[in-house]
């Protein structure tokens, strides 16, 4: 019961972070901008008729088995970037402001506090990710109503779309937990962001470039397989989606364990 209360408190605190609010605001502005653009680009009937991938043809929201061709897919990239920034910032700011000391004088069990913070970040990122995906898709509704169509939209399509949204939310959640854990280890937002960016954009790309056989173990490649839930046909290897998903989880576990151990053991000597 106390853990649940603490998790709710941590969620409320995270939602009070200005950066989190700004990121959500920017995402909503982005969705609105996309909606306006889609409406404008669907106005010309000739061009629109040839644009078979336009999301005003509602079936393009999600095309099952596709590798990155659906309208929904790019949202994953933005959500992952946002998740990294927000996850790292929520923790880093706590150390910078010294509120961690305040919290520990109320919640002496560090495991409980860290668990609640990680869980709250996971729940929030999943929920916010899902809502923002819905907003992103909804941005094309005016274009669909006025110029578009719903050909091919049936119950199985809705089911596939829902699963895709849940997968992207799940990826967002994993990335948030990763960012939270790295920031907990580094006790600093910038350090966490630099570490994660270096890993994802430099080290993984170097490994994938010099030793392509190891590319199947890289985070980016596995995310690219999990989102469409396809075998990864765009790569030089094939990897079942469930294996890709497990790979991501396996990556996360040691980082979470290390963060928990370090948070539980290290001194909180400065505010």
């Amino acid at each position, binding site marked *: 019961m106390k853990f649940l209360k603490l998790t709710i408190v941590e969620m409320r*605190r995270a939602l009070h972070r200005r950066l989190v609010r700004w990121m959500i605001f920017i995402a909503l502005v982005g969705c609105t901008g996309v909606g306006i653009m889609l409406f404008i680009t669907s106005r010309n009937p000739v061009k629109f008729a040839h644009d078979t991938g336009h999301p005003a043809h509602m079936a393009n929201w999600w095309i099952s088995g596709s590798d990155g061709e659906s309208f929904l897919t790019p949202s994953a990239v933005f959500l992952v970037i946002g998740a990294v920034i927000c996850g790292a910032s929520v923790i880093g700011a706590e150390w910078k402001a010294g509120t961690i000391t*305040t919290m520990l004088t109320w919640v002496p069990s560090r495991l409980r506090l860290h668990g609640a913070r990680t869980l709250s970040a996971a729940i929030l990122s999943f929920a916010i990710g899902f809502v923002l995906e819905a907003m992103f898709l909804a941005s094309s509704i005016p274009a669909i109503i006025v110029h578009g169509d719903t050909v091919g939209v049936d119950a199985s399509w809705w089911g596939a779309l829902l699963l895709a949204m849940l997968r992207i939310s799940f990826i967002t959640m994993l990335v948030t937990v990763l960012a939270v854990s790295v920031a907990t280890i580094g006790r600093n937002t910038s350090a966490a962001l630099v570490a994660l960016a270096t890993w994802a954009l430099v080290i993984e790309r170097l490994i994938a470039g010099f030793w392509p056989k190891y590319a199947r173990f890289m985070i980016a490649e596995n995310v690219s397989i999990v989102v469409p839930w396809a075998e990864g046909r765009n790569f030089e290897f094939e990897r079942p989606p469930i294996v890709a998903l497990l790979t991501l989880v396996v990556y996360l576990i040691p980082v979470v364990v290390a963060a928990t151990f370090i948070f539980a053991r290290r*001194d*909180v000597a400065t505010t």
Partner: protein
Amino acid sequence: MAAVIEIEGLRKEYRLRHGKRVNAVDGLDLSVPEGGVFGFLGPNGSGKTTTIRCMLGLVSATSGTTSVLGLPTPAELSTVIPRVGSIVETPAMFPTMTARENLELLGAVDGIGKKRVIQSLEKVGLGDRADHKVRTYSLGMRQRLGLAAALLKDPALLVLDEPANGLDPAGIREIRELLRQMGSEGRTVFVSSHLLTEVEQICDRVAIIDRGKLVLTGRVDEVLAEASRPSLLVGIEDLSTSAGVLQRAGLSVEVEGAFLRVAIPAADAAKVTKLLADAGLYLNELRSESVSLEELFLSITAHEEEQL
């Protein structure tokens, strides 16, 4: 009298970046009895905050034991913390929230209701600023908010690290009254401070530490009495004749500026005035010489700065 804080042989060693080790606390023994206000004094870097952090489980001791409210810490912190209100250095709250929201959130962790939140804010004089964002608060107001947070648990023990930091004279006076009130309510207030005049006014007992070691502890009046030389300062015009009169009566006398220092307890002042009056010498001023806590503190913590 039961001890609410018991520290035995506490040592905390930090490793510096270049590999050298330094003892922030070096074999500290301390016992804080229940009730009243206890002053924990020491110069900067003497180990006060590290001691408090060890007690509250924020840093782990290299060796030694600490117990709070009769239970060993950090092992029993989960039982102890709900009964301990604390401020460690500058109290940090969530700047984008109002004071009320901050305390409500903290209170929610322990199931403390909104009514108590308002009571705590009013107690520290922040009732009318309860709905202002903390980022608009001055340092002094943040300090008070920290105190309100500490009071929220209705604690048996208050551990306050420099609670008067950043407060203006009026604020310091308010905090002084508040701490005095807390102490008289039966709580134990453990307060570390640099403001020795304040400490002297509100504390029943003090402990002075230096370089991580306990130097002196006891009741404030006893400590000061022990440190004071029992002497009287006599202001009189004819210093040499007066000194002769007093010396012939068997008193130890020194000339100090325009005064005579007579080694005699203040209670025996009548003897001095009578001796001088009998000799036709009339004094202008007579006062007992006392040592303030500040003078005592400075005398026992004065040492050459050492390179770490």
